[in-house]
C-alpha cells in the first residue's frame, strides 16, 4: 500500500471513526475527540511551528469540524423546513448521526441527503412526529426537481395519428423529472407556513388531521411548483410509470376506480407534461 493511501485512510478514519455510542438521542452532547490520541488512528505526524502549542489532534480536529459542518450545512440547505421544525440544536444532532449513517459518496454535494426522510422517521425522539418524514420527502423532491430539467412536451399530433393495431401497443413515458409526494398529512400547508418569507412572529395552527395531500412536484420554467392531484391520478401515473401497455393500465385503473374518467386524466397528464413521450 502506498504511503499516500495509508495516510488518506488514517485521516478518513479519524474524520469518521468516532461512531457515537448510541443513536438513542439521549446523549447528544458533543463527543470529546480531543482526548483521542492521533497514534490510535495511525495519523501522520505533524510539524510544529515555534509560535504555537497545538497538539496534533487539535489540528486534525479542525478538519473533522470542517467535514461535519460542511455536510451539516449542505443538509440544512436542502432541508430548511425540517431544520426550522426541529430547531437548530436537534437538527445538529440528527445531521451528525445521518452523516455517519449515509456518508457522502459523490463529489457533487448536492447528491448528499437522499435518505434523510427515512432516517428521520426512525430517529429516536421523532417517532411520534410522523409528518416530519413526509415534509422531508417533499423537501427532497423540491431539491431534485430544482436540479432537474423541465419536462418536454408530448407530441399530441403524433399521438392522435395512432390507429388500429398500433394503439394496442401504446405505452407512455412518465417524466422522470417530476416527483410524487403522497402523504396522509397536510404536508404542503406545513411547508408553506415554514417558508422564510412568512412572518415568523405569526403563529399558524395546522391541524394534522386536516387530511392528506397528493402532490406532483414539477418544474414550471424557473419555478418548482406543487400540483395537488387525486388518488386516481396518482395511481394512473404510477401504473403508467411501470411501462405497461396503456390498454392494460386502463383496465387496472377501472378495476380499482370504476368511476374514473381516464380521458380526463390523460389530458391533464399530457398538458402538465407528466407524460413526455410514447411508443407503439
Amino acid at each position, binding site marked *: 500500500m502506498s504511503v*499516500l493511501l495509508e*495516510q*488518506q*485512510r488514517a485521516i*478518513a478514519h479519524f474524520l*469518521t471513526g468516532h461512531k457515537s455510542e448510541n443513536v438513542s438521542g439521549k446523549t447528544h452532547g458533543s463527543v470529546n475527540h480531543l482526548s483521542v490520541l492521533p497514534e490510535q488512528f495511525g495519523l*501522520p*505526524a*505533524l*510539524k510544529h*511551528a*515555534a*509560535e*504555537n*502549542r*497545538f497538539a*496534533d489532534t*487539535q*489540528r486534525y480536529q*479542525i*478538519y473533522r469540524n470542517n467535514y461535519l459542518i*460542511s455536510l451539516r450545512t*449542505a443538509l440544512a440547505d436542502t432541508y430548511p423546513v425540517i431544520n426550522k421544525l426541529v430547531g437548530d440544536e436537534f437538527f445538529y444532532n440528527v445531521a451528525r448521526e445521518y452523516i455517519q449513517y449515509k*456518508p*457522502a*459518496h*459523490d*463529489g*457533487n*454535494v*448536492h*447528491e448528499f441527503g437522499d435518505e434523510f*426522510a*427515512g432516517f428521520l422517521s426512525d430517529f429516536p425522539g421523532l417517532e411520534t412526529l410522523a409528518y416530519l418524514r*413526509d415534509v*422531508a*420527502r*417533499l423537501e*427532497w*423532491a423540491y431539491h*431534485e426537481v*430544482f*436540479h*432537474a*430539467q423541465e419536462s*418536454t412536451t408530448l407530441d399530441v399530433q403524433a399521438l392522435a395519428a395512432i390507429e388500429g393495431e398500433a394503439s394496442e401497443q401504446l405505452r407512455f*413515458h412518465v417524466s*422522470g*423529472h417530476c*416527483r*410524487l*409526494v403522497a402523504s396522509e398529512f397536510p404536508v404542503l400547508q406545513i411547508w408553506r407556513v415554514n417558508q422564510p418569507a412568512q412572518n415568523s412572529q405569526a403563529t399558524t395552527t395546522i391541524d394534522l388531521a386536516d387530511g392528506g395531500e397528493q402532490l406532483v412536484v414539477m418544474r414550471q420554467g*424557473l419555478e418548482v411548483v406543487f400540483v395537488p392531484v387525486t388518488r386516481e391520478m396518482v395511481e394512473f401515473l404510477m401504473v403508467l*410509470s*411501470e*411501462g405497461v401497455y396503456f390498454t392494460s393500465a386502463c383496465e387496472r385503473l377501472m378495476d380499482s376506480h370504476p368511476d374514473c374518467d381516464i380521458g380526463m386524466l390523460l389530458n391533464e397528464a399530457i398538458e402538465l407534461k*407528466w407524460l413526455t*413521450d*410514447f*411508443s407503439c
Partner: protein
Amino acid sequence: MNGQSKPVTNSMLNIPARAGIGLRALHFDDVLKQLPDVAWFEAHSENYFGFKESGFKESGFKESSFDKSGIIEGGFNNDMPAGIPLHYLEKVRGHYPVSLHGVGLSLGSTDPLNKPHLKKLKQLIHRIEPGLVSEHLSWSSVDGQYFNDLLPLPYTEESLTHMVSRVSETQDLLGRQILIENASSYLEFTSSTIPEWEFVTALAQQSGCKLLLDVNNIYVNAMNHGFDPLLFVHSVPAEMVGEIHLAGHTVKTFDEGVLLIDTHDQRVCDAVWALYDDTVAHVGDVPALIEWDSHLPALAVLVEEAKRADAIAGERIERIA
C-alpha cells in the same frame, strides 16, 4: 454601468486581467437585473451539474425494479440535465466571461480518478464555454467516501508524481489546460520534504497546468505554519500564474495560540490586500477573483471588493510601467 446598453453576446470567451466575483444562487436575480460592473464571474462547477432523469417515482422511496431505459430508446434528451441553476448560469454567460471552478474532483485522492464527475464537467464546459477551468491541490475522498472539504497532501515526491499524473489525465480527458489552486491548511506533515511553493511550481512544470494563486491561502498558511508569504509568491515563476484568488479568513484565538481559518465569509483583510499588491508586482496583470462562500453579503459588497482589487492592480501596473 448601464447594463441595458451592454451587448448580449457569447463571444466574450477569455477572462480579462481584471477582477471578477463568484456567482451564487442568492444573487442570480440581482446579477441579471443589475448586470454589475465586474469583468467576469466564477461558477462552482458542481452547482450546475444537475440531476439526471431517474424515472418517475415517489419522493423518498427507492426506485422500483422497473427499468425505464428500455421503454423509449432515444426518446428523451440524454445530454446534460439543465436544472434551474444552469439556466441562470447560461444567462449570466450571455453577458460575461465565466470561469468554472471545481471543488469536488478530489484530484489528490488515491482513489481512481472520478470519471463520471469529469464527464459532467466536460459536458458543462461544452455548454458554458468557460475562459478558465480550475481545481485544487488537495483531496476530498478515499475509498469512495467524500468529505466535502479540501484535505491536505504531504509534499513528497510520491504526492508530486501522483498529482502530476492526475492533472495530466484530467487535462487529457477535458482536452484543455486547467489551473490548480494552492489550498489553505491547518497542519504540516513531518513527511513533507518539498516546500509548498516548490511543489506547486514543479506540478505546473511537469503537468503543463497553470497555477491559480490564492493569496489568502498563502497568507493563512504562512501565519499557521510560520513562513514568509512573500517567499512563496516570489518563488513561483510569474508566467505560470493564470489567476489569483482573494478571500476573507477568520482569526481564531485558542489557549495554545492563534490559527487562521479559511472561511470565505468576510471581506479581504488588509494584510492579504498588501500581499495581493506584491503578488501583482511579481506576476503582472492576471484575472483576480473575490471569493465569498458563506454569510453572503449583498451583491454590491462583492462588486466593491472587486473594484478594490482592480484599483490595487491598476495602480501597481501603472507604477511598474
